[in-house]
């Protein structure tokens, strides 16, 4: 475990956990507002800002690049909002337009930079794929500042964010400036994406926003629990990912974190409280309920032509009425005490069963 004594490891860990926390928080809101891919689009939209700013100042100063990226990210956001407002194009399409044209502009700048005599563009390439080990101390400070801004704004405006996400119109009726709050949310998202650009690159950053939020959603209906769970899952993924990535230097950090994060998501989807396995269990239980009800009703149907309600019925006779007469269902009913097995293949209602069947008939439930 030599890496625990390595200073670079802690630097990278700090960088990735910062983005994990911020994107975990904002991803929840984005997911609930069905704007998950907005993160991907903003990430691509920051590219011309990065390369354009470099073209302007011709030095790879992290601060300048970040400012350029933020400006172009905000412009991209504004254009998305304007285009959505003034056309009837679908959200996907608007995002696609901004994504591709902005990124195209960025690559035009990039290729112009590549032809310049002072070709330092190798650093700019790192923003596409991410290169966490090149983080400097003052980069970490900038990132921490942004992290603090995101967390404190979310804490201060928690109620507003919550109501905007779930019921925008109601928020407007009680006087909350919905559009301004949404603008704040998107600005925070732009800042988070800027944070993540150097650590994981802009292609993978949408996963940081979406994966932890989706995982958290499978376990709770409560927004605050969802946000905390999202941060938790994000921290697991970033910590594990950073440890693995630093132990094997040939593996880049971003992709490992994404794979771990997505694995957590898949696990949550299958095993979560709203997950697939829970759905299967509930569905099975419902099916059993329906079948037992129908079986009891079938008994009653027989009894309509007889005087004695406890007359035993043969299994084949039951099969005639009920389309799906299962041995299993019969045994289940016997377990519950509603019928008794007299001989092989002959079944008889008990008094308890008779009472239950009469109640069910009164309920008018449809039979298969």
């Amino acid at each position: 475990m030599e890496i625990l004594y390595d200073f670079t490891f802690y630097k990278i860990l700090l960088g990735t956990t910062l983005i994990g926390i911020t994107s975990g928080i904002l991803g929840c809101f984005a997911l609930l507002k069905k704007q998950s891919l907005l993160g991907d689009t903003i990430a691509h939209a920051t590219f011309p800002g990065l390369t354009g700013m470099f073209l302007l100042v011709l030095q790879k100063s992290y601060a300048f690049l970040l400012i350029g990226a933020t400006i172009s990210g905000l412009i991209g956001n504004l254009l998305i909002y304007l285009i959505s407002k003034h056309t009837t194009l679908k959200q996907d399409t608007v995002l696609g337009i901004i994504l591709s044209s902005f990124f195209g502009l960025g690559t035009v700048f990039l290729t112009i930079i590549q032809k310049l005599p002072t070709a330092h563009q190798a650093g700019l390439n790192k923003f596409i794929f991410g290169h966490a080990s090149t983080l400097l101390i003052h980069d970490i400070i900038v990132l921490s500042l942004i992290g603090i801004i995101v967390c404190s704004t979310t804490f201060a405006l928690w109620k507003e964010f919550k109501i905007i996400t779930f019921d925008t119109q109601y928020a407007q009726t009680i006087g909350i400036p919905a559009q301004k709050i949404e603008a704040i949310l998107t600005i925070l998202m732009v800042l988070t994406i800027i944070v993540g650009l150097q650590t994981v690159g802009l292609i993978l950053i949408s996963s940081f926003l979406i994966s932890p939020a989706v995982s958290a959603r499978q376990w709770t209906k409560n927004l605050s629990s969802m946000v905390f769970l999202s941060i938790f899952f994000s921290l697991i993924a970033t910590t594990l990912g950073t440890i693995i990535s630093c132990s094997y230097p040939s593996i880049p950090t971003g992709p490992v974190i994404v794979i771990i994060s997505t694995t957590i998501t898949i696990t949550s989807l299958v095993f979560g409280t709203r997950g697939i396995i829970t759905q299967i269990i509930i569905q099975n239980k419902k099916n059993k309920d329906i079948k037992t009800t129908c079986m009891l009703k079938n008994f009653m149907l027989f009894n309509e032509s007889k005087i004695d309600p406890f007359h035993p019925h043969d299994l084949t006779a039951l099969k005639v009425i009920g389309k799906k007469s299962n041995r299993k269902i019969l045994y289940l009913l016997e377990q519950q005490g509603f019928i008794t097995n007299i001989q092989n293949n002959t079944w008889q209602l008990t008094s308890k069963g008779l009472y239950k069947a009469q109640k069910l008939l009164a309920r008018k439930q449809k039979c298969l």
Partner: protein
Amino acid sequence: MPIIQIQILAIIFLTSIACALPGNFLILSGTALIVDAISHAILLGIVVMFLITKNIHSPFLYIGAILSGLVTVTITELLISTKLIKKDAAIGLTFPFLFSIAVILINIFASNIHLDTDAILLGELAFAPFDRLIIYNTDIGPISLWIMGVIVIIQTIFVSLFYKELTLSIFDPHQAKILKYKPQLFHYMLMALASISIIGAFNTAGTILVVALIVIPPATAYLLSNHLTTMIPLSCIISLIASTIGYLCAHNYNSSIAGAIATTNGTIFGIILLAKKIYPMINFQRCKKSDIDNS
């Protein structure tokens, strides 16, 4: 104009049309960003095929790309069918996962091989004319020209044959289901068409230009027409104009052709949008006599 530039322009024209045709249907069905997802996930198919065949010029790489496109769409649809995730989140989960696997595979197994990820993003349009197709020792032109030509023909055939079904599946999937037109099948067919264009074009155009060509010209045409029969040819025309302008700009300023065309498309969209705001009656739709009589 020297012959090389004419060939590049020809390849660009064919790519533009090949992308615009399925793009019309894709943007109307609200699944435009799956194109972005497929184009990123293609890297995984290429890497896996490369690791199997150990040959960077093998045609199996194309097959790998097609397979990874299908895998992306299938996984996304699977995630949506669990009803636990919405469409956009499903897309945003799938492609980073597949892309990450690809990047890690490259770094572990192929770090010394020059699998140029830049080329996949940005394309190598400038070098496209130099890959020639040689049959029986005669040079009949750049490979990309032939590939894109075949793809354009495939697209045109599919769009004209299945125009009714595709339109119905997009605008009214429930009606399609009632009439037994299987909207799900045509949805997949649309994805497959888009994948063919993406894969055919990624070598020359790069993934970003492909997304731009599929999404933006149809969107611009959408602003200028009322009916799909006008929108489709209009999107092709707009795409050709934008590609020409983009190529000329890139040529004069010596920059990425793919990026320039993408930017030009976006700019033209912006201009048309502004123009529509100022003169809302701008429309290429011919009025039918019945429209005038009824209004």
